[in-house]
């Protein structure tokens, strides 16, 4: 599903990513961890053509991202759902309209919108709040709307950049639970996070970045590298 080959992203004299190579198969659930500035968001941006690499190849869903023509980018982005820390909801549209918006954009008919949007809202547990505005929802609920919007087109890939960054631990766990549930339906999920609790709790594949370098790729890993943790004196 995702294949990065010797990818570097440079800003004048500094590197956001340096010679990163990794591969994520279809149906995987992966945590991308690292301190602030490690390069997590840059890597996520590369995957949805929000940014281009300075060197290397980025392949997502069989398409070479760096070779996409600008008019192909919207169609490429329809193959994935993207969730952000700030939820990215339209404040003057209701929950239903926010979710329907993603369908409108791809030219779905009114009938399809009426059919698909309530189903996805039910899946994220917001079927009773269709007419609420984002400001009337809690942070967790807003993130659920964002996830619903990202998934309403049934994309094979879900990218989440710090989806729990603005949420309390309990709500964060609920959101990751939801992402896990989505992954069980076959969607590939990549979550960039520095939320230790959720990573440790779910124990899935962990890819760690440090100052732009890929320093760990561990199946069933924790937030911190077990070797480093064990070497730290108590």
């Amino acid at each position, binding site marked *: 599903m995702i294949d990065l080959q010797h990818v570097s992203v440079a800003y004048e004299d500094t590197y956001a990513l340096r010679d990163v190579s990794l591969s994520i198969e279809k149906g995987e659930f992966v945590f991308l961890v690292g301190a602030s500035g490690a390069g997590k968001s840059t890597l996520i941006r590369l995957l*949805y053509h929000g940014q281009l690499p300075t060197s290397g190849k980025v392949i997502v869903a069989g398409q070479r991202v760096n070779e996409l023509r*600008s*008019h192909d980018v*919207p*169609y*490429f*982005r*329809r193959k994935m759902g*993207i969730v952000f820390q700030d939820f*990215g*909801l*339209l404040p*003057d549209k209701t929950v239903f309209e926010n979710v329907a*918006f*993603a369908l*409108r*954009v*791809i*030219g*779905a*008919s*009114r009938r399809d919108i009426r059919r698909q949007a309530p189903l996805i809202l039910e899946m994220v547990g917001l079927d009773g709040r269709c007419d609420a505005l984002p400001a009337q929802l809690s942070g967790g609920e807003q993130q659920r709307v964002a996830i619903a*919007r990202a998934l309403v*087109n049934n994309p094979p890939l879900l990218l989440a950049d710090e989806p729990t960054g603005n949420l309390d631990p309990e709500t964060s766990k609920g959101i990751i639970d939801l992402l896990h549930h989505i992954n069980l339906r076959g969607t590939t999920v990549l979550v960039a996070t520095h939320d230790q609790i959720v990573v440790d709790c779910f124990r899935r594949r962990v890819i760690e970045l440090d100052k732009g370098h890929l320093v760990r790729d561990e199946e069933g890993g924790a937030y911190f590298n077990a070797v480093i943790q064990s070497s730290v004196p108590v």
Partner: protein
Amino acid sequence: MPLSSLAFLFEEAAKNIRRHSLMSFAALGTVAMSLAVFGGALYGIYRVNQVVSAQPSQLEILAFMHVKTRRSEALAVMQRIQKLPSVKSVNLVTKEQAWAHFMAEDRLNKTNLTTAVTGNPLPDRLDIRVKNPHELGAVADQLRNQTLFPQIKSVLDDHRLLKILLAGVGLLRVVGGLLAFLLFCATTFIIHNTLRLTLVARRREIRIMQLVGATSWFIRLPLVLEGTFHGLAGGIIAGVIVLIAANSISNLMSQFQSKLSLVSVSAGNPIFIVLLLAVAGALIGMGASLFSIRRFLARA
């Protein structure tokens, strides 16, 4: 693009105009004012042009034959002049017609000049109209050439007033054209700036649209519709303002005509100015919005 998407985009444009009503009002007002000044200048030029082109005597050359020139010779000269490329029409005024006209005027003005004259001393005359007023002088000079037209004794092309009017119209065209260009630029800039502010206010919405896979036309269309609406509505308001002002412009023109003893021309139906400004406004609005969005999306 499916019909449902098109309907959605129109709805979005209408919602945005309502939601950003203050911004819309500012854009619409400035467009209306700029186009009103532009339209007023344009209407003024149009009226002056109308008056100038309606002064027949000023566009004519009078060519007097020698008194002894035979009618057949005069007719031959008339045919030759008719063939000149700059000439629009030639009319032969026979010495008899000229004498009858002269006597009628003499009686009317009670000058009793005709009583002192025996016989008809007047020659045949050719009244020549040219296609372009600017060519009057050149045609008159050709007719004065005795080698070409030995039958013609004298040529009268007193177009001093026309020269002044043409110079005035020329100046008006240059100044008006310059003014129109400046106002066009100002109007385009105002719409562009208003849309830029709108785009900055909506950058979050645009970012979300891009992330969920909206094509650039899906993002552009509501904004282009908004820009076109601002231009169109501003143009209609400007047209109505000019329509109201047209009366005053026509009054001013009448005074000008009577002072210079010019033939007066009816203003006709100035409703065309409303249509012209509405179309101009819509085109400016559309062009400016397309330009601003293109630049914004290129940077996004």
